[in-house]
């Protein structure tokens, strides 16, 4: 694994290795001294062409806990408009000796262009590109699902295990969601069944080959008793001129997760949300704050998963993961 660009690039074994590594990382984060010397002397650049304080802080924390030097490079506003080009930025970072570039960009595929271009020699980690992919988000979601639904249910350590047999429902703006795309691919790779639920206007044309089911009615799907429900953020800025649904109120009525819908779910079902939440739109305060919601835990797991990704990409020599000497 030279780069982490897309959740779909990961094999089952690679994904499980990342989750297992993340578990080991999470264990170290329960200690008083959380910092590990592993990536001392390595430089990780957070290259953010799009604002995302949460994701940047998560990657920054992960890199620092592994003792890497972190450079935050915010090129906000210069993304798709001409001006500061991705190429010049990448060449600058290369000159600074970046061992890894964590890139967030509003243009789908920007991390792929960076990885293929030769503009940087470092590993490229996709921290969210346009409406395409957000692989570490999918990994942290899978990690959270495994912790709650695999380890606990079988009373054993979940290490080495995938998500076989789980049913995960993803609700909301699938069309514009890199979280949905990444999760559909990764959860399928890990053996889970995925159902997307959205108004038809927010499902992309061409969804047919995706490794999931698509439904338009939330209540019918919830009635099947899924193991997890993941609510996607409705991006108000995208909705402004889109006319994708008649009104926020109608959306909430049809696709919002509220106390009533929550109460009809099986006892073990957990609720996820990639954040930041629009309380009162896609998720009610009752649902967001209920004991089934693992939303705050997702944030902490994000650090462990990103530590694992940085470790696996940077610590080893350039050989396939999982191969022991």
């Amino acid at each position, binding site marked *: 694994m030279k780069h982490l660009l897309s959740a779909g690039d990961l094999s089952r074994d690679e994904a499980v290795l990342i989750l297992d590594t993340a578990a080991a990382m999470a264990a170290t984060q329960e200690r008083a001294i959380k910092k590990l010397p592993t990536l001392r002397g390595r430089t990780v650049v957070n290259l953010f062409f799009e604002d995302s304080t949460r994701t940047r802080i998560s990657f920054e924390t992960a890199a620092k806990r592994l003792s890497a030097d972190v450079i935050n490079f915010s090129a906000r506003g210069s*993304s798709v408009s001409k001006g500061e*080009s991705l190429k010049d930025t990448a060449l600058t970072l290369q000159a600074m000796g970046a061992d890894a570039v964590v890139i967030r960009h509003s243009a*789908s*595929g920007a991390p792929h*262009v960076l990885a293929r271009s030769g503009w940087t020699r470092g590993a490229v980690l996709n921290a969210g*590109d*346009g409406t395409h992919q957000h692989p570490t988000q999918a990994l942290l979601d899978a990690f959270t699902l495994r912790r709650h639904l695999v380890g606990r249910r079988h009373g054993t350590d979940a290490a080495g295990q995938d998500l076989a047999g789980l049913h995960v429902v993803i609700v909301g703006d699938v069309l514009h969601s*890199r979280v949905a795309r990444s999760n559909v691919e990764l959860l399928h790779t890990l053996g889970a069944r995925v159902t997307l639920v959205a108004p038809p206007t927010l499902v992309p044309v*061409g969804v*047919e080959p995706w490794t999931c089911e698509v439904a338009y009615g939330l209540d019918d799907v919830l009635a099947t008793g899924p193991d997890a429900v993941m609510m996607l953020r409705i991006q108000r800025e995208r909705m402004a001129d889109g006319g994708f649904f008649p009104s926020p109120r109608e959306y909430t009525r049809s696709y919002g997760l509220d106390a009533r819908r929550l109460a009809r779910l099986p006892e073990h079902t957990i609720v996820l949300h990639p954040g930041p939440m629009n309380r009162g739109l896609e998720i009610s305060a009752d649902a967001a704050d209920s004991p089934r919601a693992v939303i705050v835990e997702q944030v902490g797991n994000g650090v462990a998963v990103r530590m694992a990704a940085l470790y696996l990409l940077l610590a080893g020599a350039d050989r396939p993961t999982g191969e022991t000497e």
Partner: protein
Amino acid sequence: MTAYLLTGARPLGEESTDVLVVDGQIAALGATAADTAVDTAAERVDATGLVLLPGLVDLHTHLREPGREDAETVASGSRAAALGGYTCVHAMANTSPVADTAGVVEQVWQLGRDAGYVDVRPVGAVTVGLAGERLAELGAMAQSHAAVRVFSDDGRCVADPVVMRRALEYAKAFDAVIAQHAQEPRLTAHAQMHEGVVSAELGLAGWPAVAEEAIVARDVLLAEHVGSRLHVLHLSTAGSVEIVRWAKTRGIDVTAEATPHHLYLTDELVRGYDPRFKVNPPLRTAVDVEAVRAGLADGTIDIVGTDHAPHPREDKDCEWAAAAFGMTGLETALSVVQAAMVDTGRMTWADVARVMSVGPARIGRVADQGRPLAVGEPANLTLVDPAARRTVLPGEQATASVNTPFAGMELPGRVVATFLHGRPTVLDGRLVRPGDR
């Protein structure tokens, strides 16, 4: 007096013969050609095994001058055209300033004459500044030295149905054609690639086929209603082929164009996010490519136009969404048509002449291009070696830009010589400067 004897050439791929060119015309064919050549001291060109075509005519070229000389100039684009076998190109109007006045089209026309590699026929804008609102002075452009007969806002669609209707009607006065870039703007806001399975996976905003087809359907009905000539540029979808086929059976005066890239490449190539494959209209599916090939073979689609669209390197050396739309094509078009249509057995070389020379000249009302290979006709000629194979190397092309989607691909066929009004612009596959002979 200048004279050339092409020995052993195969006109339209048929039986080999000798062709004598004297003072810009085909002077003799067959056995008499060699005899006559002795009298005229003609220079001999060994054309053994080469296919002789009427010089190619492109109805759809972006030469970028004036305004974007960093991407292409009339001179560099002319050289690329000659090397691609062309003797005439139509320079699209979306320059800066826009070719929406007699002054600009005459400037482009003059630059073409100065370069001297091909006949450059300017295309005039349909609307002022390509804004789609007010008709440009079509009459002035038609009556200028450039004698414009093709009007297009290419790059943008004449989306307003009333403006399109008026343009179609008005152009009748000087036997001109409105060449439409069929793209419904509201359905393609922010669109990045063909809308389908690949766009869904890649998270790129989709460009639905219906955005093209809705305009094609509307325009053929408008053309029927006002009894005008309509030309559909770079038709790219199976649905558009169906609509044009229906319109022709109904007797509507519509012609249609396909580009080499829409005959050969699909949206699967976008998967690597390489902006070389970003083009307008977007690369479509394999089903569409097959429909376009079938349409070209059965005559539904009249011509192949390159939509040669050079861009400076920085406009393609970036993330997909930031990249410019367009591909170069002048130097690969004939090879791609050979690969897609001739080598697959779907077209003969006579068909190639029809769709790459005769048809475009007829639509563009270019009197001395796209003529039969017969004695007394203007000697605008192309010799192509169909047995050659070559790998496309962007850096070695004459176009000033490197954004060819065919880079690194091996393609059949090679243009060996091009004659413009009896004078070689290309010999042995190399440019011949206008003053040299």
